[in-house]
């Protein structure tokens, strides 16, 4: 089951890659930042899942809204001559790292607990 999203990632890539003509270099930066925002949402979803407070409505709306917001912020920064692009990258980068660390901690704790109780499932 966990393999399905990974397969979807690959399939999405492989479908679009041959079709995509690539877009104007000036807009390339905004796509890059949208990709980073998307990864952030993904990692965030993983964490909330492990913390048992996952909600797909929050997840889906957050995924798309964050991508658009991140790209718009970068665009706005370019318009007014302030490198908001960097601010977005730094903020998202920190969040991805924190979330990944939290995911790791949760997985390790769950594993330790399993070992102690022997028969209990990994995720409750």
């Amino acid at each position, binding site marked *: 089951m*966990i393999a399905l999203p990974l397969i979807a*990632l690959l399939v*999405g890539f492989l*479908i*679009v890659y041959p079709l995509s003509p*690539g877009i104007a*270099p000036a807009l390339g930066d905004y796509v*890059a930042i949208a990709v980073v925002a998307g990864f952030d949402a*993904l990692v965030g*979803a993983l964490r909330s899942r492990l913390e048992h407070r996952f909600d797909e409505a929050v997840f889906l709306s957050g995924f798309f809204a964050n991508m658009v917001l991140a790209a718009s912020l970068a665009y706005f920064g370019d318009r007014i001559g302030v490198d908001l692009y960097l601010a977005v990258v730094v903020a998202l980068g920190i969040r991805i790292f924190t979330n990944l660390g939290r995911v790791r901690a949760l997985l390790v704790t769950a594993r330790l607990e399993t070992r102690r109780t022997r028969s209990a499932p990994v995720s409750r």
Partner: protein
Amino acid sequence: MASLWRGEKRWVLAMTLVCFALGGLLAVHVRTQQLRGATEVGRQTSALTWLLTDTRAQLEKQKEETERLRTRVAEYEEEAASEKGLIRLMMDERRNSRIALGLLPVQGPGVELILDDSTMRTGGELGGQDFFVVHDIYLLQVENELWAAGAEAVSLNGHRLISDSAITCSARLIKVNDVSISNPFVFLAIGNRDNLTSALNIRGGILDQLRVLEFQVKLTPKDEIVIPPVAIATKYEYAQPVTKEAEP
């Protein structure tokens, strides 16, 4: 167990959807990056190639033209030299002008000066390597010194220097008359050897300063020096001789 399974399923579904979109976006991004690299390098290379071919063709054409004119002048001179008197005088005058314009190869005693970058390397206390390479301004100073000491003809790396010669620097390349040259820089100058040598070696002069910074400076007086003519003759497009009526 059933509700958990349903939750699990919805989670996977949402993740799958998002991962699919992200994969597509990633593909667009990778594609854009490839495109960006390809077009930028391609554009620059083709522009430079075009510029180079164009300039070469132009240079070739102008050299041909110079050669053609040179032979024609030689023919005229031969014809004229057979006559006497006033024409002889005019021929002498012409000869001098043509030496000054750099149209004739010339020979005579003089000096050879070879300049190269400093052997000193930056240890950090003096800043960048910029201090230790030969700059266009040094070459200009040397040229100026040579003229001031009475040089009658000067060349730099085989390029004759005349009144409209320019030594410039663009993008770390030194150019003489728009042709790039590189080190070592070889000056040839025809004139009084002693005067030229002592003028160049003057205390506090340009060579003195360069020697302190350990630039490689080699100055040799020579009995016989041959200096080539200019590759492209001067054209006068704007400057016209003042006629009687135009004088104030």
